[in-house]
């Protein structure tokens, strides 16, 4: 009865949610005595107004795509993976170990190896909560949250006690060999015509796009995806069909953790070129919002990641160039998450009468 046409559900509802978030943000900015138009101008200019801005926006987008996809895959198996943050950090450890183990002659060799390292480490970090859920019934939300803290502590320990080169002051690994440096957009022929300054966006962006496509294939074209979605919709029905819940939970969480881990290719290998503390910088959590807003579909994840990349970069610029405090970036993101996620149904219900009337007129 109360149903919207598909286009309204996919396009209109998120758009109105965003608008509402923007309006409330504007009111808050007005309330602290600043000019919201100026904020918008600086954000758009800073994030999208130049190739330099795009270089940052797409860099953030890349990270968010991976963590968003990670949440998406787990979601379809009805697992809420909040551990993307920890899995991304441990993925970074995998990247660092691979990059430092061999004096890589060229990035084309280093990249596949680092991808495997990132995915394996990320997956391994997701494997323990997954096993506890599948076999012991420990709730995945609780365990993945705890594993974020464990990951963070483990990384600090390793950086301070094990991986830090002798004599180095800060807790970080040594710099990766030059052969492991990924080409940024400025180094890629063709793209360098647009990106003339050094930007952090790098080839990982294309891997992220490929990952979107791969996840789509996985979920909607493969037998494995069919089983994951079936289990995610109904555990009882899955058992009736002979689908093993243990197998589905384990595999979906391993893929999810692997995707979160792969984010490290972007930030650890592509940008920092060494492993630092807290390398994921909250991207694991933003992935939850990205998946939520992207309706747990890879295309939606891509678009939502782009939006959050814009908010992240634009927000930083706003903090830099206006007297609006940078904390407002968090408010903005929070409002976007609130409206597109939690209040999604509210917006939908507001639209329902409108479409009902339209249907009546048409009839």
């Amino acid at each position, binding site marked *: 009865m109360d149903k919207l046409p598909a286009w309204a559900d996919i396009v209109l509802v998120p758009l109105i949610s965003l608008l509402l978030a923007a309006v409330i943000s504007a009111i808050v900015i007005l309330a602290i005595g600043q000019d919201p138009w100026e904020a918008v101008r600086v954000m758009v200019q800073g994030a999208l107004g130049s190739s330099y801005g795009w270089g940052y926006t797409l860099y953030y987008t890349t990270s968010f795509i991976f963590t968003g996809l990670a949440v998406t895959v787990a979601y379809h198996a009805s697992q809420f993976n909040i551990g993307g943050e920890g899995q991304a950090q441990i993925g970074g450890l995998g990247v660092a170990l691979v990059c430092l183990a061999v004096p890589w002659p060229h990035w084309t060799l280093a990249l596949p190896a680092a991808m495997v390292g990132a995915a394996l480490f990320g997956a391994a970090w997701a494997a323990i909560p997954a096993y506890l859920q599948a076999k012991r019934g420990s709730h995945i939300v609780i365990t993945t949250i705890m594993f974020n803290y464990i990951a963070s502590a483990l990384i600090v320990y390793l950086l301070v006690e094990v991986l830090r080169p002798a004599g180095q002051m800060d807790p970080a690994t040594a710099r990766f060999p030059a052969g492991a440096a990924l080409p940024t957009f400025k180094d890629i022929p063709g793209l360098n015509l647009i990106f003339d300054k050094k930007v952090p966006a790098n080839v990982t962006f294309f891997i992220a796009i490929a990952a979107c496509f791969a996840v789509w294939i996985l979920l909607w074209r*493969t*037998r494995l995806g069919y089983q994951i979605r079936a289990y995610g919709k*109904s555990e009882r029905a899955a*058992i009736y*069909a*002979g689908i093993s819940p243990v197998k589905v939970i384990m595999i979906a969480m391993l893929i999810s953790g692997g995707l979160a881990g792969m984010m490290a290719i972007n930030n650890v290998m592509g940008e920092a070129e060494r492993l630092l503390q807290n390398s994921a910088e909250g991207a694991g959590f933003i992935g939850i919002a990205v998946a939520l807003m992207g309706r747990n579909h890879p295309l939606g994840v891509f678009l939502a990641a782009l939006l959050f990349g814009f908010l992240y970069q634009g927000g930083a610029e706003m903090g830099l160039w206006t007297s609006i405090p940078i904390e407002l970036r968090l408010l903005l993101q929070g409002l976007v998450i609130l409206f597109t996620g939690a209040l999604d149904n509210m917006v939908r219900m507001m639209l329902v009468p409108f479409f009902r009337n339209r249907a*009546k007129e048409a*009839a």
Partner: protein
Amino acid sequence: MTGAQDSGARQATAAPTSAPPAIELRGISKAFGSVQANKDISIRVMPGTIHGIIGENGAGKSTLMSILYGFYKADAGEILIDGKPTQIPDSQAAIRAGIGMVFQHFKLVQNFTVLENIILGVEDGPLLRPSLSKARKELKRLAEEYELHVDPDETIEELSVGHQQRVEILKALYRQADILILDEPTGVLTPAEADHLFRILDNLRQQGKTIILITHKLREIMEITDTVSVMRRGEMTATVKTSETSPEQLAELMVGRKVLLHVPKGPANPGETVLEIENLRVVDEDKVERLKGVDLTIRAGEILGIAGVSGNGQSELLEVLGGYARATGTIRINGQEIDLTGKHSDAQSRRHRGIAHVPEDRHHYGLILDFAAWENMVFGYHNEPEYQKNAMIMDNDGIVEKTAAAMEHFDVRPPIPTLPAKSFSGGNQQKIVLAREIERNPDLLLVGQPTRGVDIGAIEFIHKRIVELRDAGKAVLLVSVELDEIMSLSDRIAVMFDGQIMGERLPDETNERELGLLMAGIRDTKGAA
């Protein structure tokens, strides 16, 4: 056009008496969006009678009653109570007008006592004690007057479903309802509980209460009502005196075409033994023994019906055979023993051994409601090579094509493979499950409650298909709580009670009374038969 329908409906109502009708609805219409749920409905219910309203799922019965009870506002039409036009904007107004409703899904507070539930919403003041003691006295009177006995101090969760329903009726009577509406009241009851309910309703009628009984079961209409109105697609197609009609006529009025209530079938031609079960035992998570040593055999070309009140082990039997419950004992398919606890005890392995399964609960087991019809059509068989493009990728386009053919073959409406399962009616959902399981051409078909929540027209189709499978030389194990269904489909009937087989009977040599006694656990029925 409206006038003609009006007069038609009026002519058909019960013989006029001096008293005005307890309820009269005139020209009630209600639309949801483009769906016309009720179309110009007029009905007169005489006081002191039981008036049945019958119709298929989605015919508009529940909408009509919701309007009468103030949940919905009619787009047009008026309501007269005892001859006086009455506005019913909400359920409080309905209660004031003397209307009580017993919903299909009870609206009771599970951890409150019976008394507390009775007074909920009609407490006299801030202190409960006076209300409670008043209610206790009143309850005692009602219990004696109408044979509605329940322990007032028991909490609802401790009561059986039948007793919970009595509490709902008492709630209505306590609020001085003169008109009782019961929505599919027997759907959740055992046959014995249903019988008791009908005795209560009969009592209420004799005390002058007016009762509206909504149901889709023809037998109940014939058994208890004085007058019956038939609804089809939002319209009232007829109102007739129950004594002047027949189940066949009502079925035709409901569906709009002639319906076979009993599918004709020839004598069985049993062949080799397909299924042998010996000493099957199941212990559930709470260490309760659910199956206590069941022995059964089914031969090819034979339908074995399992009769029994639900909860006596039939579900467990199906689950073990289907491969998703653990058991001890022996099960042989075509002479070969199957693995009951080890690596090959899952549902996939059972399908490989030629067992297909139409589960009792299609919403939670048989279908994934959010999945499209084509995705559901391979559910459980998704690993079969014919549905794959290569080692990883499924042949989605091929499955859609095959689904379209199967939907055609099983008359699933609408025949759109990409529609999600939840958009189909109960009968069409069941046809999807049946198509999936029968098209695999299994050696043994397990069928649980094949027609639960299924329209009468679809029942005929489903029964025909089950008999066809038998005639093709397959073995069928049928579990149903509908005794009619068991009697008309089975070649042999086994009755289950408390996890045991109480006995086996041939349908021609037994009757409902004998089976009913066996279902109640009374084994020595020689005298009764």
